[in-house]
């Protein structure tokens, strides 16, 4: 899942960045409102962590422009202002959630995860597809009860496919949601990782990741002919 962090205080920004990465997210972070706004319009982020007081473009403007442009990224607003009017205003302008500084880092990560679930309409933290069970909190994969060890990237990829289980997921979409902009953009890196994932999964059962030639991948029990 890809997250954009727009926060100008570098200490907090770097802590959020590091924490989210450690929890398996692909994270882009910036201290400038203008840069953040540009990034938000360029890419389809799953979640945007947005500080309201920013240099350049302020958070509220970024938020309203984002929603006006029809972007559906979930937005978690961060601010030091506790006034009720501020909170209501941010939520009314399109934020999905609100955290007041100083916040608990673990809580921020948990809320981001919850927003991802909401975005993909999975209410439970455990995703089941066929005999696969993904524990998104612990980032664990079990197939038929057995734990399968996956690398962080592999897990992120599988999680995305699982959240969109039964749908056709294009390579571009995988690129957008599983990789941050610092990743090297080789054209078949997605295919390579899908290959790694398949190998590990199919050691424990029939194929679940199906290729539709020229279009993308689908994670499901069996492919309609």
């Amino acid at each position, binding site marked *: 899942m890809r997250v954009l962090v727009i926060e100008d*205080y570098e200490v907090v920004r770097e*802590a*959020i960045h590091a924490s989210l990465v*450690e929890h398996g997210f692909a994270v882009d972070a910036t201290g400038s409102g203008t840069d953040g706004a540009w990034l938000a319009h360029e890419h389809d982020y799953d979640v945007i962590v947005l500080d309201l007081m*920013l240099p350049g473009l302020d958070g509220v403007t970024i938020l309203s422009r984002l929603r006006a442009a029809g972007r559906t990224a979930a937005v978690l607003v961060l601010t030091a202002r506790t006034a009720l009017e501020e909170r209501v205003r941010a939520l009314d302008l399109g934020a999905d959630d609100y955290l007041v500084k100083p916040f*608990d*880092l673990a809580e921020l990560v948990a809320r981001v995860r919850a927003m991802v679930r909401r975005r993909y309409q999975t209410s439970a933290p455990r995703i089941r597809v066929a005999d696969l069970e993904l524990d998104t909190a612990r980032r664990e994969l079990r197939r038929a009860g057995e734990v399968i060890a996956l690398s962080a990237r592999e897990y992120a990829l599988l999680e995305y496919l699982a959240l969109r289980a039964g749908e056709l997921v294009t390579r571009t979409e995988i690129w957008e949601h599983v990789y941050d902009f610092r990743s090297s953009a080789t054209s078949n890196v997605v295919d390579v990782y899908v290959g790694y994932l398949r190998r590990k999964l199919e050691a424990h059962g029939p194929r679940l990741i199906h290729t539709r030639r020229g279009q993308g991948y689908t994670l499901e029990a069996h492919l309609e002919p």
Partner: protein
Amino acid sequence: MKPTSSRSAPSRPASIRTRILVGTGLGVVVAFLATGVTIYLLMRDNAVTQLEDAVGARARALALLVETDADQLDSDISERTIPELEAGGPHLYQLWDAAGRVVERSPSLGDHDLARRGPASSGSPSIERVTLPDGSPGVQATLRFVAAPDGNSPGTRPLSAVLAFARDTVDLERSLADLRSVLVIAGVMATLACLGLLAWIARFGLRPLRTLADQIASVDLDNPASRFDTAVLPSELGPVVARLDELLGRLREAMARERALTADVAHELRTPLAGLKATLQLALSRDRDPARYRAAMQTCLGICEQTARMIEALLALARLDDLARSSVSIRCSIRAVIEEALASANARLAERAIAVELDVADACVEADRDRLRLVIDNLIDNAIVHGDGERLQVSVRPTSGIVTIRVANTGSAVAHQDAPRVFERFWRADAARSVGDHAGLGLALCHRLVGLLGGTITAASTPTSGTERGEFSIAFALATARDTQTGNDHQDHS
């Protein structure tokens, strides 16, 4: 209500009620006293005059009853003819001949004589207050006259005689004593009644003060709608209430400013706290190698130091009120102070490769050198931190009586209309986090300091058209030291 004049006393001044009572009380007492005495004296004089006139008239009447009859004085005066001369009565008379021999006397006299004083010439009686032979006070009329000859012996030479008629004044004295008593009693009662009335009036008249005191006690400082109700107070208290209202307004403003400062500080402190919390939680969220821990701790330490500096700057701002009393004004050369400030900022300037342009005329001011230095330090620091690191201009320009010191830098443009706001506490051009030492307080500090130095400070921003950059400058003006104002060279072209 009677206006009171302030009579200063060594200790606390007397209460208004006491003053009113004492003042009017004394006045009332004096008035009643004067009236009483006047009435008494008038009545006494009147009575005495009446008595004296009566006695005089009586004497003359009696004298008419004395005739000369064959070389003898013959009077027709007796108890029979003049009943009031009866023995034991208050009236006495005596008749002497020209030689001074007693011819006749009233029976009441017995063997005693009335005093034989008398007018030098005949005509009107002399009337005197005398002590009668029996010791009581009296009034005596003594008349020297010529007794007409008896009608029976017309050729007789008339003889002169002296007649005295006296009356005791015992009843008069008694009446006067009664009058005195009545007047005194009436006066005392009237005075008491007046004083009582005055006391009541004073209390009644002063009641609005109590009403006002109650209103003041019930004012709720936190509720801005709580004001004084002038409708229930008399017009004399109007100015007092108006001033109180003003004072209340100023007090509420001051409280609001206090609250704003506290809110500002709390808000500002959340930022470093968020940094500390996030850094520490990240470091603790899993096992890490010592280098990571060290880096996290270093970061936290940096944040603590930054926060400490911010708090110091805040305290310095707060303490300026105390410092105001302990400033020392000496003659300083502005150029010297600027050169010192630039020297101490030299490392930072060099590190950022900022070019410094100086246009510093020499001028002197009478000021607290430490404060002046602090202002210039802060201005330079502000320019370094918020400028874009290209140029720093410092200029000093003396004009008539005033020297203007200006620090300018290029950088991201502050909106033209925002320029005056830079002196607000915690205000930042971009509403973003500060990276400087003073956390948005440096210019607020400058503002206070320049105020204490007796000068004025302004900020100006001129954006370069078409870009987001521009020039930002802060200038403050101080009065030049007095003896540089007279006939000095560089003052000629102002």
